[in-house]
């Protein structure tokens, strides 16, 4: 025993759990309080809602270990609660449940609504808004809203339900604001209009064009001869071996905020000296996130005049696995655009004999992660 405790339904319980064990599993499996239901496990459905320190919370998103010192109430503790007795009766009368799976979460949310709005007249729309975080797959919302209205109605006269005790807000103690230096605009994101994304098979291809103040033939030689350095211009990419036949192995490191992955992959580099076109294509997987990816970085050169050339670089990705779910439109294309522009900057610096731009590693990984997400989605 490590001495950590949490109060569950008025009883001190030992918190001798793995840190990753969530509160829902802790009350259900360790304490056998199975009234709390587990649905989506990602904070959407509301079935697991319990009261923590006076407020409704998602027990599936709450590590049990974070509850040390907290007061938690599950549906079981409301047996004799005067407000809950009224709610149970109203739910029964108004047919506010069918299968009952969502009901414990609905009741916890409902008692919070009634406690906050008792004595007021609120519209059905307001109740529906308040209930939007609890899903009922039997679609019994009409009955649920009616039941809550009924209980609110019953509190129009007589004493109000008891308030829950919540945490207090304290007073901050920071030094005077003007003694803290104010930093101006550090590094705003930028995009050049030359970056385009377009449909490519099932996914999209992000392409950019830029001019280089070097003859095309000289640039081509560098692409040909110094591939490892060229790969290093792409943030997050890491080449571990390159063979004479063009086959290669490497890693692609990606990180976005709290998410990170390291894709181990193999591929092949091909060059067409006659048309100044080439590509590096590869595929790999990240064992931690159980995701697979394949992608191609293609580049081509065109001569502008004797001392200037134009380079086109494109990235296309295809991915599958756990990470594929986690994305919203536009976000990824946006970031891969930034990634490819980073490549442009670094490659231009490489040609000029300078090192790639030093960035905080996080920034680079963040960019690369977004690219990775784009890769996943295709």
């Amino acid at each position, binding site marked *: 025993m490590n001495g950590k405790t949490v109060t569950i339904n008025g009883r001190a319980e030992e918190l001798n759990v793995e840190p990753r064990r969530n509160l829902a599993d802790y009350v259900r499996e360790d304490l056998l309080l199975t009234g709390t239901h587990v649905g989506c496990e990602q904070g959407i459905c509301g079935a697991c809602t319990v009261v923590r320190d006076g407020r409704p919370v998602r027990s599936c998103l709450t590590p049990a270990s974070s509850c040390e010192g907290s007061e938690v109430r599950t549906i079981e503790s409301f047996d004799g609660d005067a407000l809950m007795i009224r709610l149970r009766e109203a739910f029964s009368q108004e047919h506010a449940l069918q299968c009952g799976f969502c009901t414990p979460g609905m009741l916890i*949310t409902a008692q919070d609504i009634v406690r906050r709005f008792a004595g007021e007249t609120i519209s059905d729309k307001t109740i529906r808004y308040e209930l939007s975080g609890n899903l009922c797959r039997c679609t019994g919302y009409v009955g649920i809203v009616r039941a809550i209205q009924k209980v609110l109605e019953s509190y129009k006269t007589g004493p109000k339900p008891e308030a829950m005790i919540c945490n207090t807000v304290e007073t901050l103690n920071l030094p005077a604001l003007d003694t803290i230096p104010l930093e101006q605009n550090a590094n705003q994101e930028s995009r050049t209009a030359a970056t385009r994304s377009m449909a490519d098979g099932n996914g999209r291809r992000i392409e950019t064009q830029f001019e280089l103040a070097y003859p095309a033939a000289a640039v081509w030689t560098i692409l040909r001869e110094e591939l490892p350095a060229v790969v290093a211009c792409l943030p997050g990419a890491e080449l571990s071996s390159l063979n004479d036949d063009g086959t290669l192995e490497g890693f692609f490191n990606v990180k976005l905020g709290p998410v990170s992955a390291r894709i181990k992959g193999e591929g092949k580099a091909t060059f067409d000296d006659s048309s100044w076109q080439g590509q590096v294509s590869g595929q790999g997987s990240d064992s931690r996130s159980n995701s697979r990816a394949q992608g191609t970085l293609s580049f081509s050169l065109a001569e502008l005049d004797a001392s200037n050339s134009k380079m086109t670089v494109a990235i296309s990705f295809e991915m599958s696995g756990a990470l594929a*779910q986690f994305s*919203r439109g536009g976000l990824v294309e946006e970031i891969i655009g930034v990634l490819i522009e980073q490549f442009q900057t670094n490659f231009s610096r490489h040609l000029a004999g300078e090192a790639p731009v030093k960035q905080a590693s996080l920034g680079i990984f963040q960019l690369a992660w977004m690219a990775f997400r784009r890769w996943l989605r295709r």
Partner: protein
Amino acid sequence: MKPQAFDYHRVEAVAEACQKMKDIETRPIAGGQSLGPMLNLRLARPGALLDVAVLRELRGCQRVQGGLLIGASITHAEIEDGLVPDNTGGILPQIARGIAYRAIRSRGTIGGSLAHADPSADWATTLIALDAQVILQRPSEGAPSRRRLHLQDFITGAMQTVIAEDELLTAVFVPDVPETSRFGYFKLCRKTGELAHAMAAVFGGADSADLRVVFGALPGAPMIQTGANALDPTTWQQALADRYPDMEGTEIGVRLHVMKKAFERSNTQ
């Protein structure tokens, strides 16, 4: 799903928390309402979580000259319920009330939301409109080292900020909102409480030159236009098309309409 195994740390002071974050595998967790789902889906696999929700130094607020300091671990629900003094004529509680669901607001924090920098988060867009600042702290020899930035300088992209590995966002400064000013905020969600697909906030004084208009829920960081042209649809259309060459006309149209809605609200509120 269940998260991958991690260690869990709880510390007493911000200084101690910053020290712990020097370990690259350690991630801070405040309310955990964004990180929680990512952990459960095994998208995030930190080696250790550092609980900053319990840090007393972040759990308060303070009236200061010209505005209000809100501790980073103050929850949306506490702002919604009026437990934090309001220096904005009701704007802060109104925004807080629109965030996700009540059970999420119970735990989600203002500092966590800003540091996570999800483009669709409510605080980022609206607090940029109010010209809020963030205060960052990191350990150094002797006294802690602090800096502050305007929120629009702090957020540099989707889920990207200028925060350093061992740095914590400790407080948010919200300037006083004069009575004569107006504010309107509108977001477009397919389902109530869901992350928005488009959002805009309009803030201004009686003088049209004071206008600040912010677009959020973009692929990247929120965009801002200020001054007399801040509400001009043509200016915005051009700005969006320049910034996002691939954004379809329909989508730009939707975002302009969302701005119109926000402006309409600013007239009536």
